[in-house]
């Protein structure tokens, strides 16, 4: 049965090989005369300014990490909230423990100055 | 009576000496001396008791005590003393007394810890001689390395770190090989009986296939051969001896080599009779090679201590020869050589130590003409040179004669070759005398003769050598009884172990297969 598909497979193979072959050939054969203008990154005709690796203040990372933590808190709480009635009190207790642990973390971060910008 | 005092007494004495050494060196020395003397005295009393009841407890064990120790693995704290153990214990205790005496003035550094190590050697070796549980035996065997390691490493001579490391690694390696062999034996026993035990009395009768027996025997043999040392495994010995302090050399030559021989007597021969019979020729060749090679190399040495070390290898070759010749005469001879070599090697090492203490050299070329300045020491040297070459009337003559007589019945050509070793012994002993004491005093040595303390040590060794040479009968009785009992016990144990498995004919076949190697030969 699979024999019937063999020509299709062959066509795929031949076209893939053909594409690779042509690209490779042009890469090998083309003349190369780089100039600074040619080597410059293309930014829609603008001349690029400065280094692309800008330095951010480390405070941004702190905020980002805090965001991830509390964002994930939401991710975990939503399923519980959806099924709250079905899960009952034990579900509520479990969710409360989860929130309490994160609150302790928040308190620590607050006291440590993690929420102050300066 | 519990046998634990044999172990506890020297250990406690060692600890006391260590603690006392924090305040006073002299106290440490006296405590160590007192402990060793007390140990010796108690053992002599025990020996006396032995003679009053020569047919003791079942199995021939003079005294035994057994406590559960690690019951989960079938390990018990099983101690027992028979004639051979007793002789070895006496030797160990006696030489420890002498070791303490010889270090009286030469050791000045960390005296308390030094004596702790000396007495720990005594403890560990006593343990080796009386342990009847293989785990316990192995533990003591390994513990005996530690104090020697420190003795050589701390109080040794110029190249001590190399020597002590080499000594420790080679002997520990061989010990681990023995551990594997012990475990193998235990597993074979466990597979055939379903009982996990390390007890000597249970394991001695283990029935196993010839191949298994051969490999296990080889494991034990190599472990003991390293200690003995048999020639390809001997390289640690000259280095360790040369670098060790005098007492360390005494302990090494007098005692540590003996545990190799003791192990062969106690474990290899009774446990694997068939494998031993197959192996006899190889072992006897190794023994003869050891005798000749040791003697030859002794002749080539320029370092006096190293020379004495090589003579040890030669003498221990006779022990191996005797053990593997296997008949009553040869085994008795081996036991006597173990004792006599303990005396003579200890005396020679003490002499070298005394010389080195005075002249600060061990170079044979730098000695000469010392008889003129120290005639007493020269006389002692001559006596032990004679003892070493096997002069009739002295201890080693008895042993070597018995061994050669026994070995002659087993293999004549090898025995003839071995007796060439006696000639070589004459050459190196006299050569040593020549180099050190005779001739002109070219080194211009002006040294004191032996002190009263040194003379006491030597006198006791001379006394022991003479006594063993002239009247060896008590020793022969003691060891002969133990050897016979051991052989009988092993055969009986094997017969009982074989019986429930096969039919009657199979059982009798097993008994026939276990008939001792040369015991029944004329």
């Amino acid at each position, binding site marked *: 049965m699979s024999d019937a598909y063999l020509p299709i497979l062959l066509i795929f193979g031949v076209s893939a090989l053909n594409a690779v072959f042509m690209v490779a050939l042009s890469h090998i054969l083309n003349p190369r005369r780089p100039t600074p203008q040619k080597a410059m990154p293309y930014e829609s005709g603008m001349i690029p300014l400065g280094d692309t690796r800008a330095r951010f203040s480390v405070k941004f990372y702190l905020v980002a990490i805090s965001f991830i933590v509390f964002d994930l808190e939401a991710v975990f709480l939503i399923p519980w909230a959806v099924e709250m009635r079905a899960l009952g009190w034990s579900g509520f207790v479990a969710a409360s423990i989860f929130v309490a642990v994160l609150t302790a973390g928040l308190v620590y971060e607050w*006291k440590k100055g993690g929420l102050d910008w300066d | 009576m519990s046998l634990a005092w044999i172990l506890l007494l020297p250990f406690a004495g060692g600890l006391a000496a260590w603690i006392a050494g924090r305040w006073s060196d002299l106290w440490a020395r006296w405590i160590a001396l007192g402990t060793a003397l007390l140990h010796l005295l108690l053992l002599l009393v025990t020996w006396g008791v032995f003679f009053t009841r020569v047919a003791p407890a079942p199995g021939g064990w003079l005294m035994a005590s057994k406590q559960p120790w690690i019951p*989960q693995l079938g390990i018990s704290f099983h101690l027992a003393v028979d004639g051979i153990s007793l002789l070895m214990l006496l030797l160990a205790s006696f030489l420890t007394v002498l070791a303490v005496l010889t270090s009286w003035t030469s050791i000045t550094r960390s005296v308390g810890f030094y004596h702790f190590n000396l007495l720990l050697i005594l403890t560990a070796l006593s343990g080796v001689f009386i342990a009847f549980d293989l785990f316990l035996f192995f533990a003591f065997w*390994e513990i005996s390395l530690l104090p020697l390691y420190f003795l050589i*490493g701390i109080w040794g001579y110029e190249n001590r770190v190399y020597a002590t490391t080499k000594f420790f690694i080679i002997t520990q*390696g061989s010990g681990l090989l023995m551990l*594997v062999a012990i*475990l193998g034996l*235990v597993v074979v026993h466990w597979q055939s009986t379903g009982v996990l035990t390390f007890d000597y009395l249970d394991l001695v009768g283990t029935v196993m296939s010839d191949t298994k027996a051969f490999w296990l025997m080889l494991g034990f043999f190599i472990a003991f051969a390293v200690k003995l040392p048999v020639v390809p495994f001997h390289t640690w010995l000259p280095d360790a001896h040369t670098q060790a302090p005098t007492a360390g050399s005494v302990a090494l030559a007098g005692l540590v080599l003996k545990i190799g021989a003791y192990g062969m007597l106690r474990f290899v021969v009774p446990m694997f009779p068939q494998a031993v019979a197959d192996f006899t020729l190889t072992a006897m060749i190794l023994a003869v090679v050891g005798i000749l090679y040791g003697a030859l190399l002794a002749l080539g040495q320029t370092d006096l201590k190293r020379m004495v070390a090589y003579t040890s290898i030669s003498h221990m070759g006779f022990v191996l020869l005797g053990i593997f010749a296997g008949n009553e005469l040869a085994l008795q001879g081996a036991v006597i050589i173990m004792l006599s070599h303990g005396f003579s090697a200890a005396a020679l090492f003490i002499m070298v130590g005394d010389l080195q203490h005075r002249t600060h050299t061990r170079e044979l070329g730098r000695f000469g003409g010392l008889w003129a300045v120290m005639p007493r020491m020269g006389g002692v040297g001559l006596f032990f040179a004679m003892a070493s070459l096997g002069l009739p009337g002295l201890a080693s003559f008895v042993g070597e004669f018995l061994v050669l007589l026994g070995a002659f019945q087993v293999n004549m050509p090898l025995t003839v070759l071995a007796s060439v070793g006696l000639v070589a012994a004459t050459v190196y002993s006299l050569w040593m005398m020549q180099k050190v004491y005779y001739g002109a005093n070219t080194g211009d040595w002006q040294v004191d003769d032996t002190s009263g303390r040194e003379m006491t040590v030597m006198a006791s060794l001379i006394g022991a050598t003479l006594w063993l040479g002239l009247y060896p009968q008590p020793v022969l009785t003691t060891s002969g009884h133990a050897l016979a009992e051991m052989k009988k016990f092993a055969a009986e144990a094997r017969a009982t172990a074989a019986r429930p498995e096969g039919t009657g004919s199979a059982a009798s076949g097993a008994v026939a297969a276990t008939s001792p190697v040369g015991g029944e030969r004329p």
Partner: protein
Amino acid sequence: MNPFSALTPIVLLGLTPLVLMLVISFHRSHRLAVVISLVGMALPLALLAGTATSAAPPLAPLLIIDGYALFYIGLLSTATMVVVVLSYGFLERVPGNREEFYLLLTLATFGCAVLTASNHFISFFLGLEILSVSLYGLVAYLRTTRTALESGIKYLILAAASAAFLLFGMALIYADLGTMDFTAMTSVLAAKTREPSVLLLGGFGMVIIGAGFKLAVVPFHMWAPDVYQGAPTPVTAYLTTVSKGAMVALLLRYGQYGGLLDYDSVASVLAVIAVLSMFLGNLLALLQDNLKRLLAYSSIAHLGYLLVAVIAASREGSHAVTFYLVAYFITSLGIFGIITALSDERKEADEISDYRGLFWRRPWVSGALSLMLFSLAGIPLTAGFVGKFYVLTAGVLSDLWALVILLVVSSVIGLYYYLRIIITMYLSAPEDPSSPLSATRRFSLPEGLVLAGLTVLLIWFGIYPAPLLSAIQAAVGSLA
């Protein structure tokens, strides 16, 4: 019995870092942090005495608190207490915040406790990650020094990579067996009579990679020397003992249930890993001059020995593994403890040359250190010997003769470097008066007590191991 009361030890261990965190927020005190962590570790221990006899209630599906788990939790939290005591003196001479160290330490132990009690891939992975994430912080705790940062980064990247392998392996096994629960795996595997599928074997391989990284066995050992050397010494002690111990505990349980050890191909892979670890660890340790680095390689070799008993997989094998671990815990904590306690503000005492002549200055300390090294080398009268003996016995009982012989040969190689350290202590001290002696710090009382206690235990279990053995047999017996 209420199944949740069985969970109390783990809950308490989990509460400790929380409490610590809140306390730090309001009142920063080094001493208080130490006290809280000690109490937090000691409370579950005290409770263990009460719960150890009770039958294991199945807290399906994630955790199982049986005697085995309790034994290991007790072992790990005791070891953590030792590390806490040692860390106090260490952190006192380090600039910066100290209290967070204990926060991370207790959190890591919580992760370890979850590992030892886990009966499911999910709890396995959760425990492992709690442990790993805390360890990243601990390893790089002295963040102003280059070496600590370097080792932190190394540990982070390699641990993350190995966790990925582990997850992939779990996924493969789940694909084949259709369950992540260890107990359920047993029945699924029992129903299968055919050869293991490629999926299953691939999964096993990935799990071995993940676990092998934590255990630092060859060829997953590359991080160990640098991390050992760069991390604060108490953390190194923790890495060697608690983190590896928890992983071994899990491996044993998983091996018992998950069929890891039932296939010859897996066993032979483990055997190759064990042999490589023993030899490479011991051989490379010969070349080291830094004590912490040397111990890293020595630890690689010791885990190799341990794997031999894991492969033995018999009843004796599990006992041997546990006993060996206990002995190894005592010994390693002792050695790293002595290194920590001897270091001062000027210099960490982690070069072998620092120990030259130590015996003549500090006979007790060097005596204890010699005993520890003898224990590592497996000389009788020490717990290490009984451990090695038990491992050899287990190997021989399972007919693993080749592995046993190789173990013996490689431990003879290992002797050399242990002896080298010991003999260095007994050499005479350098007589150059201009160079100040290192390793001169006096011990504080708690440090002295802890180290003395470890030494006594070392000898005690070396001479009379029967009580510990029966405890282990009772605990491990609940596994099967």
